């Protein structure tokens, strides 16, 4: 008899996956492929996470609505039990396993847990100088993403096409004034993508992107950046926006610094789009009675392990560990699933 790990032996073990966004979908699907039973918890009534809110994904502008069913098909297996509309607020490790709680007591148990709770967008109202929530035509990239599939009418003002649109990079990222020092990685490429989308919708419009550094790190990102400049004439202005205010026609008057010209700059736009960063999710799960902290979850070892530091058996995947795009979240989910499988099946 060869010393093969007997997969059937682990059938009785269960892994809880918390979160049904891209990372959660990948984790649940991979675990099921490996023969592990999954209890899948999601606070929303649907799986898919923020994919429901996205229109076209960078860099190739594939529709999110096409990607979602693809990811879901890989996670619709019989070994998975879905608990939609359920929030897990705390997990506690015991010698016999891990207990899941939801605020009114214990609601489940598992032998291992994968946290895939995702992220929240930065609250743009905290950057008061831009007037989000005060001026109607100051919107975030999240708002714009919802408006784009509606078509031209969503962006027309008083029946007329917008003549000028501005994008502000780094809203709530790399900013000590709001207590966030990290870079959210994906906002620059989002700004490029949305600038192209707006320019395609309104070819006569002038589009300005105000940036600090252009972070176009991924495959196809730099090419999209060049396309935005060369084919669409998007004007990239290096410098921060200091304030936005409204004029008589409800257009937004933007004041910024043009650092390359070393002069201040003013421009009036019909829409000002704030590219908001990613923050740790506030519907996070408390781990082992620890103090609730608003931070991304740190892995045990970024090179070798998705386990949460100091919590064997608990793994984290996707944006709850830091800003990631969809392919990265999916890969992270799969990696966490494999490590959870290893954890369950190795000899102890």
């Amino acid at each position, binding site marked *: 008899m060869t010393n093969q790990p007997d997969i059937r032996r682990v059938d009785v073990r269960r892994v809880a996956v918390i979160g049904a966004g891209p990372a959660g979908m990948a984790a649940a699907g991979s675990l099921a492929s490996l023969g592990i039973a999954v209890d899948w918890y999601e606070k929303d009534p649907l799986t898919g996470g923020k994919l429901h809110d996205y229109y076209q994904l960078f860099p190739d502008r594939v529709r999110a609505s096409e990607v979602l069913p693809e990811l879901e098909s890989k996670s619709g297996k019989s070994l998975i039990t879905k608990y939609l509309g359920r929030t897990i607020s705390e997990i506690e490790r015991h010698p016999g396993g891990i207990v899941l709680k939801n605020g009114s007591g214990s609601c489940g148990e598992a032998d291992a847990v994968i946290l895939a709770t995702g992220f929240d967008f930065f609250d743009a*109202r*905290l950057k*008061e*100088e831009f*007037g989000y929530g*005060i001026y109607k035509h100051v919107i975030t990239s999240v708002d714009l993403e919802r408006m784009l599939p509606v078509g031209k009418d969503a962006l027309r003002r008083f029946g007329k096409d917008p003549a000028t649109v501005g994008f502000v990079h780094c809203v709530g990222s790399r900013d000590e*004034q*709001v*207590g966030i020092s990290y870079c959210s990685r994906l906002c620059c490429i989002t700004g490029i993508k949305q600038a192209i989308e707006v320019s395609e919708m309104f070819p006569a419009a002038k589009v300005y992107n105000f940036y600090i550094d252009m972070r176009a790190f991924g495959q196809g990102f730099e090419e999209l950046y060049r396309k935005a400049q060369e084919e669409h004439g998007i004007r990239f202005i290096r410098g921060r926006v200091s*304030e936005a*205010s*409204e*004029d*008589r026609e409800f257009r937004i*008057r933007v004041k910024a610094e043009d650092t390359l010209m070393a002069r201040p700059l003013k421009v009036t736009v019909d829409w000002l789009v704030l590219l908001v960063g990613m923050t740790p999710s506030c519907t996070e799960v408390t781990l082992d009675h620890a103090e609730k902290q608003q931070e991304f979850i740190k892995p045990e070892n970024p090179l070798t392990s998705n386990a949460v530091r100091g919590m064997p058996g608990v793994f984290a995947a996707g944006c709850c560990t830091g800003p990631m795009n969809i392919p990265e979240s999916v890969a992270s989910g799969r990696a966490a699933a494999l490590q959870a499988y290893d954890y369950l099946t190795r000899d102890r």
Partner: protein
Amino acid sequence: MKVYWKDYQKEIADDDFFYVRSCIRQNFFPGAEGLFIDILRNKLGRTIYEDADHTTCTGIGYYSGIVPLETTMTVIARQFALMKEKGYKNIIISCVTSFGLYSEIIDLWKQDPDLKAKIADYLKAATGRIFAEPANMVHSSDILYKFRNEIAAQAKYRLVNAETGEPLRVVDHIGCHYGKIFPERGVGGAEFPQVLSGMVKSWGGEIIDYPERRHCCGFGFRQYIVQPNRGYSLSHSRIKLESMKPYEPDLIVTNCPGCNMFLDRWQYTIEQEDGSSYGANGRMIPVLSSEELAGLVLGYDPWEIGLQTHQVPVETLLDKIGIPYDPGMKYADKSGNQIGKPNMNLQCV
């Protein structure tokens, strides 16, 4: 640090105030401070004390690079010492720049207690006095903001066009030193301070948001004091006035005496340069400070509170609100003798 400024409430004391005056306000708008004291004592029934020995805060000298920081700190420490000696803990500061300077100094002392101890030694050596920081430190417009509803209850007039019944269109301008350096010391924070708009709204006016609302009036000090450089300061007043123009305001209200002086004076100078005017029909916009505005709604006589010293005439504004005044008394002294009048014929909106 994550604060929604719209909801921020600043702590403003209720009574027992020590008042310190402003150089610019006393000299250019001499009625305003006496009016403020009168309002607090006789209309609001509060205790406000003004020490005959108090001095300028030397902010003008400090910001022009003439007076060293330690000297300014010692002078301000002396103001606090006078306050302590008379038994007061709450200070009202008339000038916004002064208010900013006091805030800066208290912040510097907090960061460097040795510096504070050194200043205490200087003060003791120079004057024999000992000081204590105030428990509550506010600007005079904060006080009017706090008591705006009490003032509205006693008001004889509202900021409403008596003929048409429409609220007056008011633009506000808040001094930079009020909320931009220490946002937590301004009602409403740095970007959307509400100290003046709150007052105007309770007194019936309509506040207009204009694009350059947050822009500085340009006073500065260092560039303004050197005459050939003064044009740089004025260029900022021009930016503000141009931005207000499309809205055709009836009135500009300010809290800083320097800003008040600038917006009041330079409408004439800019018109001399290129003929521009900023009010409707090519006229000028009257500029009032918050205490003068409070005085008008409470029914004080316009000439008793010193409105004749404003460069832009206020008569048409008084007519709009329906406040009666005696044109003959505008340039008369207390006994009714005419003291002479300016030879400019300025029209206001």
